[in-house]
């Protein structure tokens, strides 16, 4: 059905597309796909960091995974962390973004105040929160005591250490999501809101029925990015708890780091990384299936 020139146009469009993708692909191939391929190869081998000797193991690393209690624990911690952090951080971010998407007095200051945690290097942020969470004399416990609630040992308590890190993550990342959502809000035509306002639609209804659908592509993006980020969370565990107490804060990425760099067990670390990749990939597919279809693009 396709005639020559039309076909040619289509081919040249594809050609252009590949050309545009080329710069990215060259670097991705070198610094992402190559490591992933090596990681797949390593996962079937006994590889020790620093040594050139490699032994074939077959599926032994994967079998190890099944019986590795710490792996399952860290996986559970990661899932818990994600399920709590992402919805909370994104909700806070969305409300902040909507609130700050107006010509409010002191807007620059507000935005900076909510965004700055993203900028604090994780080493420093971790240390500061170690202090804030300090038992007894820490400001958070002082505040809790002022409210008449029982004090908590936070990072020293296996039950509270992970929630403590989650809470700090929300502080650290809400501003980040807020910024992205703010950028999306800027692109919503103002008259849509004005029209709804004139129609007497309440602020909450406007948020749910106008704002959210209109920024749904960005929201979708933020959810996916949030998911991916939460699996990369490592710095705070590294700085604040080193996975303790009693592995209560050991998350998968930290466990991968431990295995690869501390235990030099590159083979097993690669296995973990591959499993994480599969897991995250599946999760994202799930999100894409659930949310992706509801995303409404203004452009189309």
């Amino acid at each position: 059905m396709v005639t020559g020139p039309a076909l040619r146009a289509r081919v040249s469009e594809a050609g252009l597309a590949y050309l545009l993708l080329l710069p990215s692909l060259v670097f991705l191939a070198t610094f992402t796909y190559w490591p992933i391929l090596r990681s797949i190869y390593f996962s079937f081998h006994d590889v020790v960091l620093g040594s050139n000797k490699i032994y074939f193991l077959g599926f032994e690393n994967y079998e190890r995974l099944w019986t590795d209690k710490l792996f399952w624990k860290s996986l559970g911690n990661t899932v818990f962390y994600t399920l709590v952090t992402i919805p909370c951080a994104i909700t806070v971010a969305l409300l902040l973004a909507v609130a700050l998407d107006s010509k409010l007095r002191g807007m620059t200051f507000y935005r900076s105040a909510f965004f700055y945690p993203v900028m604090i290097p994780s080493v420093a942020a971790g240390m500061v929160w170690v202090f804030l969470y300090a038992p007894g004399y820490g400001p958070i416990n002082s505040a809790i005591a002022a409210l008449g609630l029982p004090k908590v040992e936070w990072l020293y308590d296996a039950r509270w250490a992970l929630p403590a890190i989650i809470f700090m993550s929300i502080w650290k990342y809400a501003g980040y999501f807020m910024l992205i959502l703010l950028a999306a809000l800027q692109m919503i035509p103002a008259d849509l809101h004005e029209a709804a306002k004139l129609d007497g639609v309440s602020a909450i209804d406007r948020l749910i029925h106008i704002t959210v659908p209109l920024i749904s592509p960005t929201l979708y993006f933020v959810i996916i990015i949030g998911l991916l980020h939460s699996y990369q969370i490592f710095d705070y565990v590294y700085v604040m708890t080193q996975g303790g107490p009693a592995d209560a804060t050991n998350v998968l990425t930290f466990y991968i780091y431990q295995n690869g760099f501390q235990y030099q067990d590159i083979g097993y670390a690669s296995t973990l990384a591959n499993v994480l990749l599969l897991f995250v990939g599946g999760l994202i597919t799930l999100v894409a299936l659930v949310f992706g279809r509801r995303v409404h693009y203004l452009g189309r």
Partner: protein
Amino acid sequence: MATLQDPIELSAPATSRGTLLALRTALRRNWLHFVLLPLMLFWISPLAWIIITSLKSRTEVFDPNAGILPAVLQWGNYPAAMAVAPFGTYLINSVLATGGILVCELITITLAAYAFARLNFPGKNILFTLFLLQIMFPIYATFLTNFVTVRELGILNSLPALIVPFVASGYGTFMLRQAFRQVPTELADAARLDGCGHLGILWHVYLPLVKPTLIAFSIIAVVTHWNDYMWPLLVTNSESVRTLPIGLGLLAKSDSGADWTRLMAATVVVVSPLLLFFVIFQRRFVDSFMHAGLK
């Protein structure tokens, strides 16, 4: 900046029954402030602590009897913190490395995102997934192989080594693709009729219209890479190519408890350029594109 709430109006002289009314009006107009202000105070309290601690003497930091504010402002903490490493060189390197990453990323993601958002080609979905792989794979698992690659390229212990792994960004491509897809297709059509090719459309229509997203991405990219620690530590040896977070690492050591006052002073120094950068760019965000009215 223009404000909706005119301050004069708020303090307008109360007429006969006006005081209460004025108060209520003030409340209604400013309710957002009443919600945001406490939250904001909570949000900035760690920063306040950082700044206050950076000006304390060492014994004041944890002394429960010392009060919140330092008795004497210890400005000396700043030079003392800066003295542990050549922070000037580190600053220049951080600017170069972060700037280099940003420029490279902006180029690669713009091109790639346009292809994904607006062109049809075989293998589009698979390629997009491949781009996302970059964010899905734990970064620490790439370090070993990338270290070997960087060494083979002969750029170990150099600024390019800090940049190359981050030139392509699945994240940025994804973000920008979402923004591009928000731009009405009719605008691209109009531009084609106006004689633009794909690159012309990209340059004249898409990029100006997704400026808020570009700025948001830039801010995020800068912040992320400004604070990179592990990778720079691994691939650099010389002071002359090292970056600020490594200097910070010197003060946040594991053996003896942190060097609180100087660590916080250094944190302030490291964060300040970012904060400045953010304040400048988030203004542009508002001014240039407040509801540009894409429809």
